[in-house]
């Protein structure tokens, strides 16, 4: 059941306060180490391409690979069971336990067994299951669920673990330091492993050619669980099968790097079970290891649980390429502040969690946390298998929208929503998704619209009906749009070097008109002939709300308006980075290849374009020089993903500005996200990291500059001094 919005905001507030600090420290640490580790790797992109190819091929040929794997496992003397769903898998595992009269099972961390809830299933038969990964054990002792794919107890501080152990075990000499806690855990768990009847592990990769499983761990607990008890059950999803052992190394080289920033974790077990290792009975002081038997039993349980259907689903298929590194969680500003207990479903969390939960649990579960992905795209370049995670989140959001029944109130906004969406769509989504219409109306009736919007009753109604948080300042619509202003204007360029179409995005056209004017002045000063024709919005606003059909309609219209300009050899210059990102990424989903390629090849972010002009000999003296002026610059998240932050910095530095840049992933505003009353406080909490960076002794007197509309609004809310777009800084 979906929670009320007030409940959800309260839950987010609680998690930000209790779990947020530990999560933020740990995820940011992982993220920083990942960036360093991949920067050191010469063939990083090559490895990503390779693993992507292997996964595409493996998922494509999955039924065939599963048959090949069955042959290999059975020839080795093991058993392979492919379970339809959790109940089926649990039934099989319970049968194995019953056959062995097993009383205890030791387990190494496996998200797939979390998906099965196998511990509960075994407990029904009186089988005691103990987690041996130290983090997972903490979670088990606390009666919690993992809050991160690879670091289950990431939400807990050392102090809280010490407190937990003290309360739960009441030891004579309570452990406190990390060393003491580890020793305490190792001793407790060592006894359990020694006496267990069955060892259970996951498997990170399984090779069809030899039946070899690769299990990645740093503690060594998976090794102990796999070889200490006589019976080993490995549980995994069917999607973990790859064709050959020859394919393993690129995955291993990327997995730990992407997750924790380590080159490799301490141990990669490559087991081709049943293994030859002798069985261990630590009471035996008579028989040397070489003379003990190695009569071992091995069961590989692979679970479908919706995966084979995801394979047939053109949008969700990519989710199956996920190798569970956790990078999308670590690099996500929202995740850094709330963790997987908010940004997660029944089992899986973080950016890719939505795809998993939609595929294996259903849309209701995915709907609980899908909105935490703001599409900032900071996870995209770090995904080892190049999954377009924001797109999966958008598609799932669209499906959630479409699954809804109308709830009433709709008549209120029907006139404002000329979209392609079904009637049940949430009103807040519908309002933000149709921001273009709102902006047109707002400009046409400004300043009256701004006065009305700012009155108490209007703000109350906006919050009550559409969930727009009353604590946020609303955008102030300008009576004269950029397009109107430009129409009345005479060009100052007589002998142009180039011709451009300046894309009048909805914010620049209706709200941030000054940055549009500044862009025109800069381009003309550099000898470029500019046109600003009226055009539809890019579709970013509806896309963010999961209104994919509406966004697609915008894409067709925008391309239609630009095609003639592209034919005439004009460049397209975009001010709003999120719109350029839309052309660069999402339009590939909507437009024919040839169209999108032409658009991508000829469109530029404004400062990127200025950089290019200056590099090609345009006269920088026509722009406003910095003369050592100190600025603090925050690049837009999508602009950074596109690799365009450096151009702005280079232009500013060339012009003599002293530039300090922020390194937080996202400002926290993220389009409509920060306006929504459910997420307002999280948005501000994320934003505080940026505010902190720009309030240090070194930064506090600098002029604040930001590329995106959202970033500018967020910075205005966070800081006492105003923020401006870099193009306004340099405009003559």
């Amino acid at each position, binding site marked *: 059941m979906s929670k009320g919005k007030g409940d959800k905001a309260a839950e987010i507030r609680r998690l930000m306060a209790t779990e947020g600090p530990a999560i933020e420290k740990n995820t940011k640490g992982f993220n920083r180490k990942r960036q360093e580790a991949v920067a050191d790797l010469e063939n990083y992109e090559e490895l990503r391409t390779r693993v992507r190819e292997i996964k595409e091929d493996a998922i494509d040929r999955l039924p065939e690979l599963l048959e090949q794997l069955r042959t290999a496992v059975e020839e080795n003397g093991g058993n392979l069971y492919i379970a339809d769903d959790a109940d089926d898998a649990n039934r099989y595992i319970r049968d194995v336990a019953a056959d062995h009269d097993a009383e205890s099972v030791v387990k190494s961390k496996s998200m797939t067994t979390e998906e099965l809830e196998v511990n509960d299933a075994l407990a029904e038969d009186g089988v005691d299951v103990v987690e*041996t*990964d130290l*983090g997972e054990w*903490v979670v088990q002792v606390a009666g919690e669920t993992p809050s991160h794919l690879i*670091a289950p107890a990431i939400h807990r501080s*050392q*102090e809280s*673990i010490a407190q937990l152990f003290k309360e739960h075990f009441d030891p004579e000499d309570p452990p406190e330091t*990390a*060393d003491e*806690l*580890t020793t305490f*855990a*190792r001793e407790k768990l060592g006894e359990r*492993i020694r006496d267990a009847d069955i060892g259970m592990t996951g498997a990170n990769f399984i*090779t069809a*050619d*030899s*039946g*070899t499983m690769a299990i990645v761990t*740093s*503690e*060594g*607990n998976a*090794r*102990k669980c796999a*070889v*200490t008890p006589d019976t080993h059950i490995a549980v995994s999803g069917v999607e973990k099968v790859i064709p*050959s*052992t*020859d394919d*393993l*190394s690129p995955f*291993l*080289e990327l997995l730990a790097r992407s997750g*924790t920033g380590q*080159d*490799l*974790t*301490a*141990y*990669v*077990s*490559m*087991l*081709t079970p049943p*293994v030859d*290792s*002798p069985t*261990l009975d*630590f*009471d*035996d*002081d*008579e*028989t*040397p*290891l*070489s003379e*003990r038997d190695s009569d071992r039993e091995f069961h590989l349980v692979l679970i479908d649980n919706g995966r084979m259907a995801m394979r047939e689903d053109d949008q969700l298929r990519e989710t199956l390429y996920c190798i569970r590194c956790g990078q999308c969680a670590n690099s996500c500003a929202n995740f850094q502040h709330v963790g997987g207990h908010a940004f997660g479903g029944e089992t899986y969390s973080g950016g890719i969690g939505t795809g998993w939960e939609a595929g294996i649990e259903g849309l209701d579960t995915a709907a609980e946390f899908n909105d935490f992905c703001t599409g900032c795209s900071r996870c995209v370049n770090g995904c080892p298998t190049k999954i377009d995670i924001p797109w999966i989140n958008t598609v799932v959001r669209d499906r959630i929208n479409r699954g809804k029944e109308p709830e009433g109130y709709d008549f209120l906004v029907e006139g404002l929503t000329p979209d392609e969406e079904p009637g049940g769509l949430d009103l807040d989504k519908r309002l933000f998704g149709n921001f273009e219409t709102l902006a047109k109306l707002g400009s046409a009736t400004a300043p009256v619209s701004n006065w009305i919007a700012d009155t108490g009753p209007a703000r109350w109604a906006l919050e009550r009906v559409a969930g727009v948080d009353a604590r946020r300042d609303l955008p102030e619509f300008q009576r004269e749009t950029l397009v109107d202003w430009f129409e009345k204007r005479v060009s100052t360029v007589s002998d142009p070097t180039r011709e451009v179409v300046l894309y009048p995005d909805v914010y620049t056209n209706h709200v941030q008109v000054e940055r549009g004017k500044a862009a025109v002045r800069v381009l003309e000063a550099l000898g470029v002939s500019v046109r600003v024709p009226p055009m539809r919005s890019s579709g970013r606003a509806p896309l963010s709300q999961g209104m994919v059909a509406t966004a697609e309609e915008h894409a067709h219209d925008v391309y239609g308006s630009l095609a003639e300009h592209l034919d005439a050899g004009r460049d397209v210059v975009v001010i709003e980075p999120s719109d350029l990102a839309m052309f660069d990424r999402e339009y590939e989903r909507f437009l024919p290849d040839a169209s999108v390629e032409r658009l991508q090849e000829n469109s530029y972010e404004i400062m990127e374009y200025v950089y290019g002009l200056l590099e090609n000999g345009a006269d920088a003296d026509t722009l406003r020089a910095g003369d050592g002026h100190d600025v603090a610059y925050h690049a837009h998240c999508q602009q950074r993903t596109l690799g365009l932050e450096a151009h702005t910095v280079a232009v500013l530095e060339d012009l003599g500005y002293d530039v300090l840049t922020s390194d937080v992933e996202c400002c926290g505003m993220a389009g409509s996200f920060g306006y929504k009353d459910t997420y307002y406080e999280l948005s501000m909490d994320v934003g505080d990291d940026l505010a902190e960076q720009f309030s240090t002794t070194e930064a506090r007197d600098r002029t604040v500059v930001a590329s995106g509309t959202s970033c500018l609004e967020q910075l205005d809310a966070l800081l006492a001094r105003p923020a401006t777009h870099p193009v306004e800084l340099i405009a003559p």
Partner: protein
Amino acid sequence: MATTTTNPTLSTFEEALADLGVELTRTTVDDFAATLDDIVRDPAVGVALPFDVEYPDSVTVDPTPAALERAETGVTPASFGVANYGSVLLPSTADGAEPVSLYPKLHVPVLRASDVLPDLPEALDRFGDAARDEDLSAIVATGPSATADMGKLVLGAHGPEAVHVVMLDE
């Protein structure tokens, strides 16, 4: 004791081990027993080495499980070294190389200098053939066992807290 070498693969391996905090001692077949005797902590156990070397008396070769549980040091062969990561490939064998490398606090892998390969793909290529043909299992071990789950990095979670590589120059 680092020995200078002109072989780039070996010097890469030495550097990677140093970065991991793993000690490396190079020795010869003749000096092996004496060298190992200085390295191990008592009680020490080991599994038979596929090299032409003798174990010192301080190491109990082919121990019982109970002796393994009491041991402070475990000595096992390594099939390959991976130079750029400082990893060793530990084959899983019927005489217990896997538990001997895993349970004691100090693990001493022994490998031939000529078995140090430049990178992981090459090591896994060789492993793959053995996995397909002989059902081989192996562990790629890189440094000691570690955990960060208790608030900061701690060595020696479930596995060894220290690794000391012995490399045989032949």
